[in-house]
């Protein structure tokens, strides 16, 4: 939509034959073709679809980049032989695209720009190595993807094809049309190469299996994963590394891709432990792995690898114990998620809530010393802490004294013992300056229950009455 008129953004092959063009107003198009079916453009959905197709194309190469709005770039360097050469790869990709019902045009060439230009403005297909210039010089100047006025200016100058441009000295071209144009030209003609920036960074280690026939039964699926894990473990072992992150991608024959991620706390290449984590992961999936019409490729990638320290097993078993705990943590993290398996670290602050921080156990715990508790003193901090603190109604005997009675959760507690106040000032550099001071009291009711209460504000004539909160429970 531009201005207030509805315009055509895209159309199918049939519409092209009927003479519709991009940017034409909808009213115009309707006048020509009364039975035109028009839908509102959804660029967001288109983009998502393109990403899904990109994920699908992961089966051919790990290096996939989006060429928005309608294209994908695949770096198939060193991958083509797995699919029977470039021709085989092209045919396979074509078949797969047709199966998901896409109209497409593809080209394979020495540089990404050459392939793109050949697919969009040429015949498409395979450009044999070294023949970029010969084949591509015949393309129209529109292949340069320059701004519309540049293309018009070029055509006014009588420069219709890339061949016309190549014959000119590049200095004059860049002086007139800018450096970008000549760079683009060099790239299209294969004089200069630049790699694509892939959508997902290429993993360090990838193992995969492709199947002639899609299959769906769980047992063979697991058998394949077992083999892949074993293979990856061997690759990692040969490199003296262990993986921290394992990503298993299941490629469904209808184009959907499901990725499962397994994370380990330390570098690992223990096939048995990994398989256990994989089973754990499969079991805890909120939406089970739906095979649909079957999977036709499975790929195990290890995006994060780290040097693997060979454990020295002493017979006292300490290292084994540490390893056993780390394995347990990995399994729990896989099952419950990173943020549900926690360890505590101390922070250097007097603020009661911020004094401790729960960190995921999946990452190594930073060293932090906890203050040594005062000998022979009862605990100064509660075992359980309410966050946010719970408001209570309390009565104090003297304005700055501890409460003698308070009501919490509809129960009245008579205070038998109390200690306080311990005045804790807010951290003005975090809380702001209007956060009130808190006076904390350790109190015990007549039944022996111990509470941590605090009061904000003071009993003063000209201010709001203080409020009481219950912040924690002592054992």
């Amino acid at each position, binding site marked *: 939509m531009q201005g207030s008129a509805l315009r055509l953004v895209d159309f199918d092959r049939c519409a092209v034959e009927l003479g519709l063009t991009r940017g034409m107003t909808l009213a115009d198009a309707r006048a020509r073709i009364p039975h035109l079916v028009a839908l509102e453009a959804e660029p967001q959905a288109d983009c998502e679809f393109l990403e899904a197709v990109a994920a699908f194309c992961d089966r051919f190469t790990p290096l996939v980049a989006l060429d928005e709005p309608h294209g994908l770039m695949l770096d198939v360097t060193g991958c083509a032989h797995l699919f029977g050469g470039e021709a085989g790869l092209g045919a396979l990709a074509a078949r797969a695209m047709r199966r998901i019902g896409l109209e497409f045009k593809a080209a394979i060439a020495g540089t990404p720009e050459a392939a793109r230009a050949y697919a969009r403005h040429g015949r498409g297909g395979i450009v044999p190595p070294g023949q970029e210039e010969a084949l591509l010089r015949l393309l129209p100047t529109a292949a340069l993807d320059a701004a519309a006025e540049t293309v018009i200016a070029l055509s006014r100058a009588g420069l219709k094809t890339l061949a016309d441009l190549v014959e000119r000295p590049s200095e004059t071209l860049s002086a007139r049309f800018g450096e970008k144009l000549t760079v683009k030209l060099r790239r299209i003609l294969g004089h200069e190469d630049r790699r694509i920036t892939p959508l997902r960074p290429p993993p360090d280690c990838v193992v995969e299996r492709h199947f002639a026939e899609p299959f769906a039964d769980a047992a063979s699926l697991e058998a394949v994963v077992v083999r892949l894990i074993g293979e990856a473990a061997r690759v990692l072992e040969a490199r003296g590394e262990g993986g921290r992150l394992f990503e298993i991608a299941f490629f469904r024959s209808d184009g959907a891709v499901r990725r499962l991620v397994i994370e380990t706390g330390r570098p690992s290449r223990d096939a048995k432990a990994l398989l256990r984590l994989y089973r754990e992961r499969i079991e805890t999936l909120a939406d089970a792995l739906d095979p649909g019409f079957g999977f036709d490729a499975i790929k195990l990638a290890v995006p994060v690898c780290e040097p693997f320290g060979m454990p020295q097993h002493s017979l006292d078993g300490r290292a084994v114990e540490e390893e056993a705990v780390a394995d347990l943590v990995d399994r729990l993290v896989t099952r419950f998620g990173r943020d549900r398996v926690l*360890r505590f670290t101390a922070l250097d602050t007097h603020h009661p809530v911020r004094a401790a921080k729960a960190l995921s156990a999946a990452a190594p715990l930073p060293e932090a010393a906890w203050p040594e508790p005062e000998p022979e003193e009862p605990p100064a901090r509660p075992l359980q802490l309410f966050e946010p603190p719970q408001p209570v109604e309390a009565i104090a005997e003297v304005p700055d004294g501890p409460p003698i009675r308070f009501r919490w959760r509809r129960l009245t507690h008579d205070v038998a*013992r109390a200690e306080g106040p311990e005045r804790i000032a807010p951290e003005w550099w975090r809380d702001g300056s209007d956060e009130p001071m808190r006076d904390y009291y*350790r109190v015990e009711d*007549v039944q*022996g229950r*111990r509470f941590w209460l605090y009061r904000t504000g003071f009993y003063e004539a000209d201010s709001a009455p203080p409020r009481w909160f219950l912040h924690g429970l002592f*054992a």
Partner: protein
Amino acid sequence: MHRAAPSALPDLRRSLAEATLRMRPAATGRVRLGAAEIDAALSGGIDRAALHEVYAAGAGDLAAATGFALGLALRAAEEKAEDAVARPILWIRQDFVDAETGRLHAPGLNELGLDPARLLLVRAREAEGVLRAGAEGARCPALGAVLIEPWGEPRVFDLTASRRLALAAEGSGVTTLLLRVAATEAPSAARTRWQARALASRALEANAPGQPAFALRLLRHRGGVRGDVTEREWRVEWDRDRHRFAERSLFDRSSRTDHAAPLSRPLVPVSGDGQVAADGQDSGFRRTG
């Protein structure tokens, strides 16, 4: 198959080490609570490689039950460590417990004697997850203790589940504690079942609350006990500095004599009886130790 060779030796070493880990004498035996009378009644403490249950006496005693269970877990983890290694304690908590009783506060754990760095906390949404993680932990012999804390009486925590946990604990030698909050007693395979109630502490100077104190009842003990203890109530304090439970009556007496001497602060000489009276529930209860 020559490829498998480099990993064979470490594998062998590892399985040997794992075997010794399981064979260690410390993996069996008993955990003394530290309070002489209880230990005597239990013929030396609670079984290490077993499942034990802790119930709270009332809704207000949840924190006390939690504290007692933590004390037990610490005892178990420490008595196991004849090699003075602080083994981690796995605590599995259902989310709802956090909402009801407040979440675990690391400085508070530290004040009760557990180095928070040793604690591994798992927060599970559902009781199924709590059970699952509990069973997983109970099977791991490298842990000091496992504390499982579901909320209420979920269906999954039935007799079969507790049998499974008990078997896992027996196999690994890890003391497994099931902290039942907001639940009534139900048949289980636990070796002992405790009920903990908050007990008025011995006041410090200026009537300040003292050390954490609990009134304990042994509701059930498989394998029997010496004497009739099921009706008995023990009063203990948690001694954070020595990491043990101390009997209250005994503690009181000693605190007035030899125990009080090294303290820098004068203790308010309130006897156990005075506390009981303040407690208001069973005054006249007197024990000679």
